């Protein structure tokens, strides 16, 4: 036997093992499906996705688009999917910003700031999320009712029904367009090399609000103002943007919990930066802010990114706790649909697929960012 023949034998053996593995997996899946099918037929249960076209006949607490009890299951599930995505993204953004701030404080030399950050992290990280969620929800629903709502200058109201904010007098489509324009501006502005970060932020805020006002002015109904202010009327507020209290509680609980974890990730990343680098920055006479922006953070980000991605995926999965307080996230919609339609396996499959899709995309985004951050030659 010469080396070439041995190599060939080995590669063939590897191929065979892999092929067997694939066949085995396919077989297991096939057996599972056919068993389920046989059992369902025996129980006289209808299976298949025909039910998706049927009207649900029930309503729920929150939706970004118009909802009615005549919606089909497919539309209702889509609304649940959008709610999960919406809540998850808001919590990811807020937790990341807060987590970076607190992680930096945890790394700071001032004892008071450091102690505060430590207490925050230990408190919110070590209590189960569901407990925190139920606690915040209980606190929020014991606020005054809509008739005695806290008000901020008669344009925004906070009651146990939710937060009422002034909004633009336009359709949801235009609001989506606004977000798209703001995101586009962010991309354009933050790619400018010639500006300082603070200048970029200011420029983005000013141009973003300008663009929003312009769009609102173009698309608002001709005979009314471009702003819509909430006003008390009977049992509710009319006009403005209503953020239901369930959504407020979800954002609050998940953000506090998620940011405590992210803060630890950030602190770990900042600790990893060799002290020689910060000392070199000091020797060059850089201010501590400049050191943080140009020396520490860029280096630390490489350590922070992978665990941060995991935290983002965790936050997305945490949205499923909505079921505990009646917030209509995807899991809540699926579990109600299961009871109302009896299509357990199909709906569970859809739920799994949706979360795979969301979290796989997130993981890909993190990988992409990682690749962008990688140091040349490292």
């Amino acid at each position, binding site marked *: 036997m010469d080396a070439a023949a041995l190599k060939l034998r080995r590669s063939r053996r590897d191929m065979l093992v892999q092929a067997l593995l694939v066949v085995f997996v396919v077989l297991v899946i096939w057996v599972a499906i056919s068993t389920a099918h046989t059992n369902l037929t*025996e*129980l006289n249960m209808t299976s298949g996705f025909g039910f998706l076209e049927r009207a649900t006949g029930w309503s729920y607490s929150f939706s970004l688009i118009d909802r009615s*009890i005549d919606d089909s299951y497919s539309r209702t599930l889509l609304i649940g999917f959008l709610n999960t995505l919406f809540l998850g993204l808001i919590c990811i953004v807020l937790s990341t910003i807060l987590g970076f701030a607190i992680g930096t404080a945890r790394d700071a030399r001032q004892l008071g700031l450091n102690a505060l950050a430590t207490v925050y992290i230990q408190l919110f990280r070590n209590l189960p999320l569901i407990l925190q969620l139920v606690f915040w929800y209980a606190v929020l629903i014991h606020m005054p009712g809509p008739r005695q709502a806290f008000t901020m200058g008669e344009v925004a109201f906070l009651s146990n029904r939710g937060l009422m904010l002034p909004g633009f007098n336009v359709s949801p489509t235009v609001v989506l367009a606004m977000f798209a324009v703001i995101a586009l501006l962010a991309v354009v502005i933050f790619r400018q090399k010639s500006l300082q970060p603070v200048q970029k932020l200011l420029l983005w805020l000013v141009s973003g609000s300008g663009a929003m006002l312009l769009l609102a002015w173009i698309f608002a109904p001709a005979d009314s103002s471009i702003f819509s202010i909430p006003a008390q009327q009977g*049992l509710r507020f009319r006009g403005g943007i209503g953020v239901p209290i*369930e959504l407020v509680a979800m954002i609050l609980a998940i953000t506090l919990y998620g940011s405590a974890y992210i803060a630890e990730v950030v602190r770990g990343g900042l600790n990893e930066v060799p002290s020689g680098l910060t000392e070199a920055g000091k020797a060059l006479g850089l201010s501590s802010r400049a050191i943080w922006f140009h020396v520490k953070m860029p280096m630390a980000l490489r350590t922070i990114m992978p665990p941060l991605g995991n935290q983002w995926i965790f936050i997305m999965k945490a949205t499923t706790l909505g079921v505990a307080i*009646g917030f209509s996230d995807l899991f809540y919609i699926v579990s109600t649909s299961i009871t*109302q339609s*009896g299509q357990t396996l199909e709906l569970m499959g859809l739920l799994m697929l949706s979360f795979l899709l969301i979290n796989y995309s997130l993981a890909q985004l993190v990988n992409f960012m990682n690749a962008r951050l990688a140091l040349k030659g490292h």
Partner: protein
Amino acid sequence: MATNIAKIACAVAFAAGVAAPVTAVAKSSTVTAIEERGTLLCSGHNGSYFGFVEVNDKNEWKGLDIDMCRALTTAILGDPDKAQIVPLSWAQRFPALQSGDVDVIIKATGWTMGRDTEVGLQFSLPYFFGGTQFMAHGDLGITEAKELDGGTICVEAGTTIERLAGNYLKTLGIEHTMVSYEKASELRAAYLANRCDAFAAWGPFLAVLRATELEKPDAHIILSDQLSNEPIAAAMRQGDEEFVDMVNWMIAALLIAEEEGVTSANVEEMASNPPNPKIARLLGVDPGMGERLGIRDTWAKEMIAATGNFGEIYDRNLGKGSPYKLERGLNNLWSHGGVLYAPILD
């Protein structure tokens, strides 16, 4: 799966030439499984649904539905304490039944077309009737659902109530927000904290809640609208007709006993000296009562001795003997102005 195993077991038994007693009826596979296990698995609740399924801190269960379950357990196994209560949320009850975690659902479950067909359930005779109603905070000063315009309504997720309330308010053309909760305790807390203006639930449940659970009963008003009259029945897996017969005749026997005045106090006396042929048949003095179902002839007698007739069960859990003092109303026998009746015992 269980049915298959039972079929194979039967086939093997015959092939082996085991002389099985030849009966006129095929034995229910569910009943066989219950007898082998020695316990009957019944649906409980994730918390207390007052008057129907209540649990205390010692994990002792009581309520109308629990008593119905204990009656069924006595009929099949001869001992009410062999009932094993499995805690389930509303949303879990059908999957749990289909997967065999419980043998039967007796838990304020309404008979609907979807459940009867798609979900693959089989329903018994209705043993209780209750309609969906709204309860609202007294300080709103309203008396009917029409005045709920713009309000927030709380319901339990995954129930028929959720659909009925949505449908009713849409028909009235009322703009509203519906918030639904998985657990009754969450729902109560939300309603009491004034998160919702009104609370849609099953009439008997609301009456029970208002009578005992809430600090000031006058602070809450049950609105005049009657959204439905829901027949409540026991639910079983489809494909075991003999078990459906068993549950139907369990309910029928409780109603017949009340009609004929057979109570837990006088059942022994009636059995030793039956006042009429019907009672003699019911209590197994004349054979046939058990043989036709494949169990003991005296099952109904033992059951009535253990739990009492339907009237006794009602009074103990919802009526005069309970803290709730609910009128029987629709849930009286047909001969007393209600709508409950039993099929003919021949």
